[in-house]
């Protein structure tokens, strides 16, 4: 066969640094930092370690949700059930400890398994029964909400209040409180390390393993991937299982920080998680995704949430501005797709 040498065959048009700088995850990270410093300058009360801890505390569970749903969105799917599934898992998992008296480690594992179970249903419906994700997860959304309330009989669940209380050790994974004599306590945000660890692992899985590559491929073009001899249904199913694991972790993170879970908790969180992913550059059309982007997107929303009250604007402003940011992110996404056309 005729050989032809290609100049710069492996090279990309842009260097890696330029490419990174153009990526939406980078833009989201920059926006997050800029936003932080705007508040830092505008509001003296915004400065300090405890504000950072507060921002992170409200970001952990959302970040886990965001990472999980990134995999589902990468397949071209969506998960509307993740909020109520998280609520259901936190409610029922906690009861195993507080009501049934099982050891905490059992309760924690059960929390994750409950979330995985609901996502096994999601994955089965979407990948094997071929129901649109939107409809399938709308069904499980309501199922999870109802199921949690049936079992808990609408009682709220209390997780251990402090790390020193019985079964409270796991809370140290998210926050270690150091008491200081004659001064207020310092909260060390250990959860940041846990979170970054998970983002790194999931980023590698998404970009460097077969699992991640096939998830992106089938999200990019389902039929072409199938015709390449790949078991697309299996990998589509796995995306929901990954999502389930992270919904379970989100339930644990929320329980560790906020302790008390009321019936009905979690509803509506899916919009925040999906928003975080979209802001971070994950394309709702599937095929393009970034776990780092989702992290930055979620944290950016938490910065807004913590910062706006400090400059005298309440939560209605947070909603309004988050909406604008989502639209900007989507416009960037659409324009990027257009120019690459």
């Amino acid at each position, binding site marked *: 066969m005729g050989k032809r040498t290609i100049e710069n065959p492996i090279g990309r048009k842009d260097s890696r640094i330029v490419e990174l700088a153009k990526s939406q995850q980078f833009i989201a990270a920059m926006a997050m930092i800029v936003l932080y410093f705007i508040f830092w300058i505008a509001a003296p009360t915004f400065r300090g370690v405890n504000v950072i801890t507060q921002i992170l505390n409200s970001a952990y569970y959302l970040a886990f949700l965001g990472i999980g749903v990134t995999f589902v969105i990468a397949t071209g799917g969506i998960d509307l059930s993740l909020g109520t599934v998280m609520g259901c898992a936190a409610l029922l998992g906690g009861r195993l400890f507080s009501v049934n008296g099982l050891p905490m480690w059992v309760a924690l594992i059960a929390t994750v398994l409950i979330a995985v179970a609901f996502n096994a249903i999601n994955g089965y419906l979407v990948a094997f029964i071929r129901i649109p994700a939107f409809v399938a997860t709308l069904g499980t959304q309501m199922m999870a909400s109802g199921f949690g309330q049936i079992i808990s009989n609408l009682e709220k669940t209390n997780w251990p209040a402090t790390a020193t209380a019985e079964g409270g050790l796991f809370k140290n994974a998210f926050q270690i409180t150091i008491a200081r004599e004659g001064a207020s306590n310092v909260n060390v945000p250990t959860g940041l390390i846990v979170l970054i660890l998970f983002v790194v692992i999931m980023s590698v899985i998404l970009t460097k393993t077969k699992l991640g590559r096939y998830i992106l491929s089938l999200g990019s073009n389902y039929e072409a991937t199938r015709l390449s001899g790949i*078991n697309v249904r299996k990998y589509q199913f796995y995306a929901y299982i990954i999502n389930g694991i992270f919904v379970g972790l989100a339930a644990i993170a929320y329980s560790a920080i906020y302790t008390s879970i009321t019936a009905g908790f979690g509803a509506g969180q899916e919009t925040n998680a999906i928003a975080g992913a979209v802001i971070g550059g994950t394309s709702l059309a599937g095929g393009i995704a970034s776990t780092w982007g989702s992290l930055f997107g979620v944290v950016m929303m938490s910065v807004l949430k913590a910062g706006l009250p400090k400059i005298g604007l309440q939560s209605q402003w947070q909603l309004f501005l988050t909406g604008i940011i989502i639209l900007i992110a989507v416009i960037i996404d659409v324009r990027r797709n257009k120019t690459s056309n």
Partner: protein
Amino acid sequence: MAELLEMKNVDKAFSGVQALSNVQFHLRRGEVHAFMGENGAGKSTLMKILTGVYQRDAGEVLLDGNSVEYSNTAEAMADGVVIVHQELNMMGDLTVYENIFIGRESMNGILINDRENIKRTKELFDTIGVSINPHAKVDSLTVGQQQMVEIAKAVSHDARIVVFDEPTSALTQAEITELFTIIKDLRAKGIGIIYITHRMDEVFEISDRITILRDGQYIGTVDTANTDKDELISMMVGRELTEEVKLASQVDEDAEVVLEVEHLSAGRMVKDVSFNLRRGEILGVSGLMGAGRTEMARLIYGAEQPESGTIKLHGEEVQIKSTEDAVAMGIGYLSEDRRRFGVLVDKTVAENTVLANLDQYISQGLINDSKARQDAVEYNEMVNTKMTGVGQVVRTLSGGNQQKVVVAKWLLRDSDILIFDEPTRGIDVGAKAEIYEIMQDLADEGKSIIMISSEMQEILRMSDRIVVMCEGNVTATLPIEGATQEEILSYAMMRKEV
């Protein structure tokens, strides 16, 4: 009287890249003017300037002697300049008449006057001589019928100029004949027709003049009566190409039979299909659109399940339950619709090339991307993919180069049996020759190829043996020696009595 259309010295650049420079195009009333050139030669760009999708950088466009510059397609339509797209743009869930008059429905106050719209649709169909039920949903029509609806829609804008962009690529022979009747009819009414195509035979059948572009440059305009195929091809590619025919099978008499298909049936598209394939053989599968060839291929490839029949590989009966099974058994499939079924358009050349073969690049659970890229480079060089590098996104490659990436994918997978479904559809002449060369090389190396093709020339040039299908049946298996177009076509139109 001025000419109907004069496009003079048109320039157009996109982000610094000159797409058209100093291009000329003249069209007379009542003329069919064929517009030819390799993919990327600038045909579509010029037509988009004409119809208001793009605006020219320099030059002049005169319609009936008046300078025009449309800023959108609506303005062009208002002037009677319309285009019938290669890819049909219709709302499949709406009816024929709804599609034709969308945006300009006859109204009764605030309500749509459906009776009037249906009446106008019928009148329109009468004038151009098509018989389609205006109430039919567009999705229920054949591709050919859908095209007729598009044409009717175009003509309904009091068209002065109708541009056809590769109108026959998805049509059967009978539909093409019908289309040509309509085009001749439009011509007789004084409408100027611009006819973009890659098909040489059609140019000689339908056109009065031919304009050729190459690499954004105007090469020339010739009278169809005073030219021939060789001249046109040399104008298009700048070098002499001859379209030859394979004179004799290049497969050994005693070559192993690698694939045996027996009594394969599924639905109404594949009925009792039997044939075999030998090592090193290119088996051409000819037939008209809708003959069930792609459906048959998808059964062999495990993309669909047969209702009955057996498939044997190397003499052993096998169950192919999924595409995964097929790939594991050494079968590769190159779809006729590359963008939908062949490539991941927003992924890179490298990612596409290794997609079917990712297992080979896993070490300790991670993908070794640098090795994957190296192999992608090697295999794409082998098939001569023109690209800036394997990091290039496939969307930005031409059709021919996208096809080469798909070929590279299956070469890398080392498949023994390759099913090429319309391997050169929408691919320009130069790249076509390269694809042919690759296919023949593969066969010479001992790969076995099933080549589904609607182009007679391609079948005769490439096949060692020819299977002809019609309406789901195999109607003939012909040796290449002595096969003629007439013979193949007669089998392709030979319905089996049910």
